[in-house]
């Protein structure tokens, strides 16, 4: 129980804790971000103070941990590491709030955090966002930060990740690798696969980006799409992935949280490739996870505190983090890099630069809906 529960609730929840905000309340594009050394897979986001923090001023920051708690080796732990990093870089009194009953106590915690005069409250728990929306206006002196969500109030900053961009790169890589018999385990074909947790725009954002990346490499590559209808069912994931491998796919991308561990298992036993999501999952089955599409929640947390300390956290805006900031992207491919011909990696690096430069626009289902060419 613990396992599936944790896998489900912590790994995937944040990854896809997206809501459709079609009304364009988004301010697009990150305001800041400096570096753009666009070598694919090696880019680290920039954990650097954007100003010299004023001495003497201490900031009170609270971090509300999501369901699953610390120790999940995923979303919460990643966010927490960004929080710790910010605490060393800035003069911050940090409080971490955990509760086994965060779902029910969320509203009370949000209220009490407001009462307690924090400068910034970072809330990782999606189910409390209604409460944040209701409470934030009553505490104008407190800034709020809600990752994976658009701004909820004039003093709340939303952070969204351009997962479609990273997924695009994953698709581009997969479409190349699947056709090359020199790569270990590949039976050349023009088929790749992707498994989503549920059919929802927040998930299709990944899937469409992936399909678009493959299409741009070779329009004749077929992308198999399926949904596991749940995030905690590795057996289902294995079953779906096995089906795709038997249909000729060499690479399957999982966007299904705990279900995805089954996809990775299937790749290992079929001697094929999976693509991980959210965190660096390459080490789960070394050599059989082609790459992972990483999302750097830690950077979002760090960035919000960075802005707070430098007086740049204004609230009322939604910050999009993407390839440019290094907040999404492919993993280092520690176990697979040497087996993949470098021309493919170069191609992916090239595509990454093009996205950063705005030469390629990756489809965003959140704002654009589902493209006509995408069939699931």
């Amino acid at each position: 129980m613990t396992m599936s529960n944790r896998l489900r609730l912590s790994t995937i929840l944040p990854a896809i804790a997206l809501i459709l905000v079609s009304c364009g309340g988004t301010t697009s594009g990150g305001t800041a971000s400096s570096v753009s050394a666009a070598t694919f897979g090696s880019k680290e986001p920039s954990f650097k103070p954007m100003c010299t923090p004023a001495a003497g001023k201490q900031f009170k920051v609270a971090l509300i941990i999501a369901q699953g708690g610390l120790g999940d080796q995923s979303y919460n732990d990643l966010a927490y590491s960004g929080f710790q990093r910010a605490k060393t870089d800035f003069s911050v009194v940090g409080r971490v709030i955990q509760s086994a009953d965060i779902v029910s106590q969320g509203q009370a915690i949000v209220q009490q955090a407001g009462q307690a005069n924090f400068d910034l409250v970072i809330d990782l728990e999606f189910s409390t966002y209604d409460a944040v929306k209701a409470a934030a206006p009553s505490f104008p002196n407190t800034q709020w930060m809600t990752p994976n969500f658009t701004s909820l109030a004039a003093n709340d900053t939303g952070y969204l990740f351009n997962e479609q961009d990273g997924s695009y790169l994953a698709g581009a890589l997969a479409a190349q690798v699947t056709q090359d018999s020199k790569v270990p385990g590949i039976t050349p074909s023009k088929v790749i696969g992707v498994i989503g947790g549920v059919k929802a725009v927040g998930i299709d954002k990944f899937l469409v980006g992936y399909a678009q990346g493959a299409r741009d490499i070779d329009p004749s590559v077929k992308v198999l799409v399926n949904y596991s209808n749940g995030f905690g069912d590795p057996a289902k994931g294995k079953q779906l992935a096995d089906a795709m491998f038997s249909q000729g796919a060499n690479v399957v991308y999982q966007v299904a949280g705990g279900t995805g561990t089954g996809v990775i298992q299937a790749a290992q036993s079929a001697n094929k490739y999976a693509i991980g999501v959210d965190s660096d999952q390459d080490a789960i089955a070394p050599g059989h996870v082609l790459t992972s599409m990483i999302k750097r929640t830690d950077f979002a947390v760090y960035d919000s505190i960075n802005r707070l300390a430098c007086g740049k956290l204004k609230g009322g805006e939604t910050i999009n983090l993407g390839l440019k900031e290094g907040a999404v992207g492919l993993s280092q491919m520690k176990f697979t890099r040497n087996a993949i011909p470098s021309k493919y990696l170069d191609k992916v690096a090239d595509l990454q630069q093009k996205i950063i430069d705005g030469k390629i626009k990756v489809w965003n289902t959140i704002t654009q809906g589902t493209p006509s060419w995408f069939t699931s």
Partner: protein
Amino acid sequence: MSQVTAETGIPVAGQETIAPSRGLQLLRPLQLAGPFVVALIVGAIVLAASGRDAAGTYWLLLQQSLGGPTEIANTLVAATPVLLTGLATAIAFRSGMFNVGVEGSLYVGAFAAAWAGFTLTRLPGPIVILVAVVLAGLAGAVWALIPGILRAQWRVDEVVTTLMLNYVAILLTSWLVNYFFLAPDIANSMSPLIASDARLAPLLPRSQLTIAFLLALVVTLLYAYLFNRATIGYQLRMTGLNPRFARAVGINLGRSIIVVFLLSGLIGGFAGGLQILGVNYRFIDHFSPGYGFTGIAVALLGRGHPAGILLSALFFGALSNGGAMIQLFSDIPLDLINILQGVVMIFAVIELSRLPACLTRCSGCWRPPRRPRPPSCSPPWVAWSTARVASSISGWNR
């Protein structure tokens, strides 16, 4: 004497029992407070060992759980579900049924209430609330009826069935919400929000203290009435104290079992439904941190007595609420609160009162092995340890 009290619940005041020795009388409040005192001492040792100020931490804990109207409201909100699950569990325990499946009733009840709340959006709020609460109770009762019938008809051990049905309920609701009732455009495993006028109105602004707590108090009173004044409650109590006797005087055990499970499930369902209507406003997959299992501890700690159950529910509510809030003001980790809770539970169940008796019995001359006690008296730790195992499996106190 203490044994009698432990089994029948705290006796009604003013009864003409043979007076216990003076020493025992003086010991009684001490025994009841024992678990808490020991827990606080152990907690203090842990705090001190980790280099923290124990007194200051306890003071902060007290402030954050009872220090003002908002704090008290939050404590009452946190106490509401465990008060109800505690009562649901206690009804079964006092009737000799080790129903450890209140968690399951809570889940199906919560789902039923949420379903009513997001489906019947055209009806006026109060009617939706009424329908949702009734549905929640019915769902919980029907769910508990399964092990009830298995037990009554085929003597299938209810500890096993109720424990396992918890997981069935959790996974069933998970399946329902993920496959059929997912909130549109949200990839998280949660249902749509219930209609806004189906939410229970807060009694105190900016809190979630609603009539749910008052309803829980009413259920507490009904519980007291059931076991002290009602004929059916008398029958259930006799069934719990000595099923062979109950059968011989013509109490229908099968019917008692069914009634017990229905009532227990009904209250468990209410607990889930009220939590949705008053706090969560939607069904969230795996939302309960183990209210049903905490209810077992509440029932045992309260010794089956209504006031005891109320007090221990408030205690757990205060600890849960205070434990979360205290983190806003100090760097006390949640684990410490979990330690406090765990120690209280352990010592609640050990029953300090029996310890000296056991020691004197075990020394002295050898005696023939004691006859196994009748099933009615099977020790509470059976249920407790089962519950403990269950909780560690489900990870509610992670």
